[in-house]
């Protein structure tokens, strides 16, 4: 583990008062696009190999090896597309927004290198609709890139002209799911598709498509510049490289910071986040879908092994939200489940109905009408939904599942307290003759 200092955030000052948008000229002046120039002199296959050897894993939440994903594109099938996932709607996550707000070109350089390495025809940057300011910044940055021959030019040695377009979303969490994103790109409702076929074979407009997260692509220039070994020297054996970590919640200095993978959460919060406000109780370490870390799990290392060691779904976006001991965890669980019930696209019954039922049960608990059997019922509903139990098309339901599971497993007394103290037992509340 050897962290040389900011990689992705290297151009963005620590002092908020000094931060401003880094335009093309300043980006180039600080060494930007030099790695694109270097890449264009290398065989595309060499770049793919470098990315595989670097151990770069997807930074969007799933952590799938980036270089390996690129190799799934069928040889000699064209056109191929690159979809950049800038939908960033996972609650507690705001790292991609921060990066592009100040340094959009680092991602654009990553896109240009990835597009050359994979003979991409069109790259579509899918930015969520709510990022209005960042959308304008990105459009300006893409125009600067076109004006300077970064996009709209042929990949050397081919007849393929590479174009890069910004596609604005319109408010749907599920469009951050890779196949939901493809559907929204094609102008349809964002209903995820069943896999197989995988996007690398049949993706956008039924053509081979890779989908990569903003931060994943932003790592590419560094790998080209310093080689896979330098990238691998950061982090842990299973989790190479630097990571953007957006800290929020009960901390003194919320914001986006960078360190290497494997840094313990408590150290991250102390070193960058100004420490916890009050006494630590629980944390969502990587967006709500990963589930919650318990009171004795504050030292968990932020890497891709966190799932199996600490009983959570995975690392996720590695953007922690810290909750202190004044937090009502039953309310926070309700907040998460309300989110899933609202954002469920509605295709799959266990997700659509299950999240709505879980929301009703949690409402009952928050209002003091919880029943003892509610806890088992909640667990049963949660465990039944998701890709892991095999009952849904996409992983939104797994998020619901893991929030319920981890909250009940690690904080059961909080729920039992709500039921025992204010419970109005024996009073049935019905709506239209149905007990709720």
């Amino acid at each position, binding site marked *: 583990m050897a962290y040389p200092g900011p990689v992705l955030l290297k151009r963005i000052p620590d002092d908020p008062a000094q931060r401003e948008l880094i335009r093309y000229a300043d980006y180039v002046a600080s060494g930007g696009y030099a790695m694109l120039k270097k890449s264009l002199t290398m065989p595309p296959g060499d770049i793919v190999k470098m990315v595989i050897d670097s151990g770069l894993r997807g930074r969007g939440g799933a952590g799938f090896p980036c270089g390996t994903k690129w190799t799934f594109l069928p040889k000699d099938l064209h056109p191929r597309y690159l979809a950049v996932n800038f939908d*960033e709607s996972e609650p507690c996550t*705001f790292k991609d927004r921060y990066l592009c707000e100040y340094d959009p070109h680092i991602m654009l350089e990553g896109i240009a290198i990835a597009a050359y390495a994979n003979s991409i025809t069109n790259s579509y940057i899918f930015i969520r*609709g*709510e990022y209005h300011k960042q959308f304008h910044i990105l459009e300006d940055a893409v125009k600067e890139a076109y004006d300077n021959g970064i996009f709209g030019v042929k990949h050397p040695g081919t007849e393929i002209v590479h174009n890069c377009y910004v596609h604005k*979303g319109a408010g749907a*969490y599920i469009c951050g799911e890779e196949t939901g994103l493809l559907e929204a790109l094609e102008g349809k409702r964002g209903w995820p598709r069943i896999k197989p076929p995988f996007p690398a074979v049949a993706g956008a*407009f039924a053509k081979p498509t890779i989908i990569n997260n903003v931060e994943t692509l932003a790592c590419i220039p560094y790998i080209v510049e310093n080689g896979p070994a330098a990238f691998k020297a950061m982090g842990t054996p299973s989790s190479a490289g630097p990571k953007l970590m*957006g800290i*929020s919640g009960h901390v003194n200095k919320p914001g986006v910071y960078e360190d290497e993978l494997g840094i313990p959460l408590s150290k991250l919060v102390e070193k960058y986040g100004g420490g916890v406000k009050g006494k630590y109780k629980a944390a969502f370490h990587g967006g709500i879908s990963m589930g919650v870390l318990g009171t004795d799990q504050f030292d968990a290392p932020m890497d891709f092994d966190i799932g199996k060691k600490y009983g959570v779904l995975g690392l996720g976006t590695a953007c922690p939200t810290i909750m202190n001991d004044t937090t009502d965890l039953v309310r926070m669980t309700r907040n998460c489940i309300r989110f899933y019930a609202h954002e469920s696209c509605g295709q799959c019954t266990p997700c659509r109905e299950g999240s709505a039922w879980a929301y009703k049960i949690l409402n009952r608990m928050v209002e003091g009408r919880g029943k003892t059997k509610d806890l088992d019922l909640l667990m049963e509903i949660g465990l039944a939904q998701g890709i892991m139990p095999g009952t849904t098309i996409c992983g939104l339901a797994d998020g619901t599942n893991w929030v319920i599971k981890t909250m009940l497993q690690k904080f059961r007394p909080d729920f039992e307290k709500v039921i025992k103290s204010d419970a109005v037992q024996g009073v049935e509340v019905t709506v239209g003759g149905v007990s709720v």
Partner: protein
Amino acid sequence: MAWIAQNRLQPLEPTRAEPYLTDAIKQKISEKYFPRYPTKRACMLPLFHEVMHTYGFIAPQAMDEAAAFLEISPSEVQDAVSFYEEFRFDKTGTYVVNVCRSLACELLGHEKILQKIRDVFGIDPGETTDDHKITVLEVECLGACEFAPCALINEDLHGPLTPDGFVKTLQSLPAEAKHDASTH
């Protein structure tokens, strides 16, 4: 027994002679967006962003016109458009205030913000003030958790909010929203 039947022979909203998809909008979409995608249908989101930006809501007639323009059926247009949170069918006030209600913002007190708005303006989320100036909505994570609790007023992000501070901001909004003519 009495049935109260709705007259469905007439459209719910009268058709207006002036099209929603003006020549200017159509030209912008065909010049800027058609070349980007292999299908016209893929221009659905850019087109309706333009419609929302121009009119602030989507009328049934606008969807019919879009269907003809994109060469697909009106039901396919409605299918897509009705899915997205930002595409609204009802009219809103001059300022659409989207208050984030996801984890970090609820943790740091978004309910107090909404209660203060209720106290001062007399509206719940989903409602508009009588003078049509402000519509308050609850929205899911805005991706600005370091500024929690936060909200969007039209396209501008505000945060971290305090109940009194935010109400003052809302009260001092000018009657006319600054309208950015070029959207996307």
